[in-house]
């Protein structure tokens, strides 16, 4: 083949030697035809024989036959060769715009794009099928796919367009007799007619060279694809009349003067050709035409098949197709204005597209998909396993924040934000977006599938909490550590013992060795707390009260109660209240040891919520029995040298008063009278009352018991026998305490807090007999007088407070501070 792609085979050889498919150059072009025509004209058959050509043929060459060489080769020696052949370069200039248009179209008309079959089907109307061979589809740069994000070339379709149709350029036999279709001979004749006319038209060559349309503007009918249905006569008539799409209009004899070789075909507006350096020169040929149909996606023959309306330019909105400036001149003012406005709009839009398209092609679709996949993976990793974000797991992971927010009403930043859902949503969105316009494209689907699969895998992996937290890529030096919000990257990698069997026995032995050492106390206390917390969890998950006729709910409730009971037993065991009391033991009872820790004291109110009355009285009894050995009593004994106990002890006492006493008081206030009697008896029998009474906690407990007894008596609930028993015990207590009554006051008079003492004295005074009351007054008279005197030196509010405390006692025995005044 020749350099320019001209067909150098002779006509008679052509049928015999179809030759390989030649891609872009396969199509015949008028240049070749003319060259062929001239060759045919004088050399016809005798040019082949070697003998004939050998003998001085060069000398015999007729120089006047060179007259048309210029026409053939576009201007001869004096003119630059030009770049008409450079289909690739021209197309590449506008490939971005083509791609943009393509994308836009496919987005706007997804159903069309989806419906497009990969190769041409026999049922397609012939007119549209010929559009397949139309110029735009010939101008492949090979790079369109890079401007079309989803495009992957379909090799099969390509071969059907290029290869098979051109390999057998047989004339359509059935229609050959129908003279409305031009036969090969006709076309060649036309070419011959054309050639002499082209000669004397040098002026036309000053026009800018058209893009590459002219060679393809006259597809000879015999180049219809193989197996193409014969054209119906009426269509052929239309062809002749020029109603065909302008860009494939065959040159009717009348127009041939205008559209000789090197002249723009009527279908391509001049202004576009002249502005060939504008980005999208082969945008839709003309405004009205573009308006009438969907935007034209040039390179995709398959798409074009589906758009017959687009092929017939004129008429849809009543505006003529403007094919050249002259036509513009003939239009009415309105039409012209409308056309110009339309044109300006289009130019503006094209410019915009051009500006936007600067970054086109920087990333291939594969790149984009890759990035998207990475982003999705990050998303899923960040979300971790939040997919199962029920309340329980949120509480496990974020306990402090969640509970704190509930308690203090803090604003929640992301209340249970379902990140997993977010990932899901995102995935679905992209799925819709990609699948929308490009379902026809196999590999785009593949990408989506791969992405979906990857996300699924990632979600599952996150759910399964991946065992290996590191990835070592083969051949790389570093490791990649996986981490997410739930499992931050581990800095230290400590091997834990495979089973806990190794560690546990040792600990057990230790705890068995000494129940009283601090560590084991704390361990026991933690057991209490863990039992406590599981009980609180149970409380939260309490099923709703079952209805009568709902066996399932009843069953559920029963199971729940069973679990609660089990936990209660566990808590009770870990409290060690029932441990045997060892008399005269040097180590305190385990339960009392628990109470000696601050957090043991703090646990009491929570424990009391989860245990029944019997357990509460047991605890109270334990405390009363061991009142002596309670740290808050034992350490609080004011020694003669010191004004008050140490800070730590005072804090412990404060804590005990705040945490334990209210719980005990809460129980005592509901306790039956006989239990009160029994407790008072225990205090008297088991403890050293005189020393107990010197402490705040001891006095508090005594006050508690005495006041409860008084309330019971006032309410008249006390049986006579019980009351007698109580009075007996009370008398013993009074007699024991009487000598030390003055010592129960803390420190000197100005040390402040002595209210609890006055409360105790008041409780004693109410329950005491008149004789006992007198003894009481005598015992504390000095203190009363001192306090009254002292309060006069104090500021008004403090003074009234102190006097109020004293009055608490005075009123109990029927007196008042005012009387002392």
């Amino acid at each position, binding site marked *: 083949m020749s350099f320019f792609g001209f067909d150098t085979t002779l006509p008679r050889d052509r049928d015999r030697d179809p030759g390989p498919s030649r891609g872009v150059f396969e199509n015949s072009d008028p240049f070749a035809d003319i060259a062929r025509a001239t060759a045919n004209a004088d050399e016809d058959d005798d040019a082949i024989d070697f003998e004939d050509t050998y003998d001085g043929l060069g000398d015999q060459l007729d120089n006047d036959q060179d007259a048309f060489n210029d026409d053939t080769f576009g201007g001869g020696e004096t003119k630059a060769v030009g770049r008409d052949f450079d289909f690739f370069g021209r197309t590449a200039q506008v490939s971005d715009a083509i791609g943009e248009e393509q994308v836009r179209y496919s987005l706007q008309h997804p159903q069309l794009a989806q419906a497009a079959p990969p190769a041409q089907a026999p049922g397609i109307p012939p007119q549209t099928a010929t559009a397949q061979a139309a110029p735009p589809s010939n101008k492949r740069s090979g790079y369109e796919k890079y401007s079309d994000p989803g495009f992957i070339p379909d090799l099969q379709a390509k071969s059907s367009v290029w290869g098979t149709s051109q390999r057998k350029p047989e004339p359509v036999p059935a229609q050959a007799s129908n003279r409305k279709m031009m036969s090969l001979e006709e076309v060649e004749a036309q070419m011959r007619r054309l050639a002499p006319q082209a000669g004397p038209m040098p002026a036309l060559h000053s026009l800018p060279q058209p893009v590459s349309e002219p060679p393809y503007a006259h597809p000879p009918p015999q180049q219809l694809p193989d197996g193409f249905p014969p054209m119906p006569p009426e269509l052929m008539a239309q062809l002749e009349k020029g109603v065909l799409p302008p860009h494939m209009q065959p040159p009717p004899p009348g127009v041939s003067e205008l559209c000789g070789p090197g002249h723009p075909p009527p279908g391509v507006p001049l202004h576009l050709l002249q502005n060939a350096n504008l980005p999208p020169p082969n945008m839709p040929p003309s405004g009205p035409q573009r308006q009438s149909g969907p935007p034209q996606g040039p390179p995709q023959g398959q798409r074009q098949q589906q758009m017959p309306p687009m092929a017939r330019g004129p008429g849809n909105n009543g505006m003529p197709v403007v094919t050249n400036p002259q036509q513009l001149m003939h239009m009415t003012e309105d039409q012209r204005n409308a056309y110009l406005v339309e044109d300006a709009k289009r130019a503006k839009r094209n410019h915009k597209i051009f500006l936007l398209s600067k970054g086109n092609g920087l990333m291939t679709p594969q790149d984009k998909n890759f990035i998207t996949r990475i982003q999705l993976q990050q998303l899923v990793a960040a979300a971790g396993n939040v997919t199962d974000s029920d309340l329980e797991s949120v509480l496990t992971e974020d306990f402090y924040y969640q509970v704190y927010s509930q308690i203090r009403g803090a604003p929640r*930043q992301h209340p249970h934000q379902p990140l997993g859902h977010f990932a899901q949503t995102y995935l679905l969105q992209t799925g819709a977006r990609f699948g929308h316009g490009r379902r026809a494209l196999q590999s785009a689907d593949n990408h989506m599938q791969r992405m979906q699969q990857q996300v699924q895998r990632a979600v599952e992996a996150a759910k399964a909490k991946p065992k290996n937290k590191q990835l070592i890529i083969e051949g790389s030096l570093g490791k990649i550590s996986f981490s997410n919000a739930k499992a931050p990257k581990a800095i230290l990698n400590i091997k834990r013992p495979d089973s806990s069997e190794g560690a546990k026995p040792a600990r057990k032995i230790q705890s068995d060795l000494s129940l009283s050492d601090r560590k084991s106390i704390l361990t026991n206390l933690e057991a209490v707390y863990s039992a406590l917390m599981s009980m609180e969890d149970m409380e939260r998950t309490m099923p709703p009260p079952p209805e009568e006729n709902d066996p399932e709910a009843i069953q559920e409730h029963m199971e729940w109660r069973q679990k609660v009971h089990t936990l209660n037993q566990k808590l009770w065991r870990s409290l060690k209240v029932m441990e045997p009391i060892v008399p005269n033991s040097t180590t305190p009872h385990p339960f009392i040891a628990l109470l000696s820790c601050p957090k043991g004291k703090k646990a009491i109110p929570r424990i009391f919520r989860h245990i029944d009355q019997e357990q509460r009285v047991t605890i109270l009894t334990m405390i009363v029995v061991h009142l002596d050995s309670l740290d808050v009593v034992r350490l609080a004994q004011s020694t003669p040298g010191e004004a008050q106990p140490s800070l730590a002890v005072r804090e412990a006492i404060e804590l005990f008063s705040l945490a334990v006493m209210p719980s005990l008081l809460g129980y005592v206030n509901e306790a039956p009278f006989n239990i009160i009697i029994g407790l008072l008896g225990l205090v008297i029998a088991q403890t050293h009352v005189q020393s107990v009474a010197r402490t705040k906690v001891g006095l508090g407990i005594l006050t508690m018991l005495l006041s409860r007894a008084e309330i019971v008596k006032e309410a008249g609930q006390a049986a006579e026998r019980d009351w007698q028993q109580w009075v007996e015990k009370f008398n013993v207590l009074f007699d024991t305490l009487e000598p030390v009554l003055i010592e129960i006051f803390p420190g000197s008079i100005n040390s402040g807090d002595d209210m609890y003492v006055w409360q105790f004295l008041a409780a004693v005074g109410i329950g005491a007999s008149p004789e006992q009351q007198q003894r009481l007054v005598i015992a504390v008279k000095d203190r009363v007088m001192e306090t009254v005197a002292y309060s006069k030196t104090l500021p008004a509010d403090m003074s009234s407070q102190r006097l109020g405390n004293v009055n608490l006692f005075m009123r109990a025995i029927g007196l008042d501070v005012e009387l002392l005044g």
Partner: protein
Amino acid sequence: MLFFSFFKTLTNQTVTIELKNDIRIRGILKSVDQYLNIKLDEVEVLDLDKYPHLSSVKNMFIRGSVVRYVMLPRSEVDVGLLEDATRREAANQAGKAR
């Protein structure tokens, strides 16, 4: 997640952060993330004489790894709850290790 959970409750409280390079910054805790990176607003640098270059800084993002101490408003910490949260965390960790 305990510390993350804990610091989240302190948002919009004034905290003082001491960095490992001894700079102490007081400001309103705006947010914290799982790396304990911290965003501070209305920043005020203690010992500003020593760090004059920070005098115009109004808010900042502190990488969690450079923090030495965070001084908290005591009233905003529920110690009992924090203890329980710690127990839960320990139980979780033990559960994971097993």
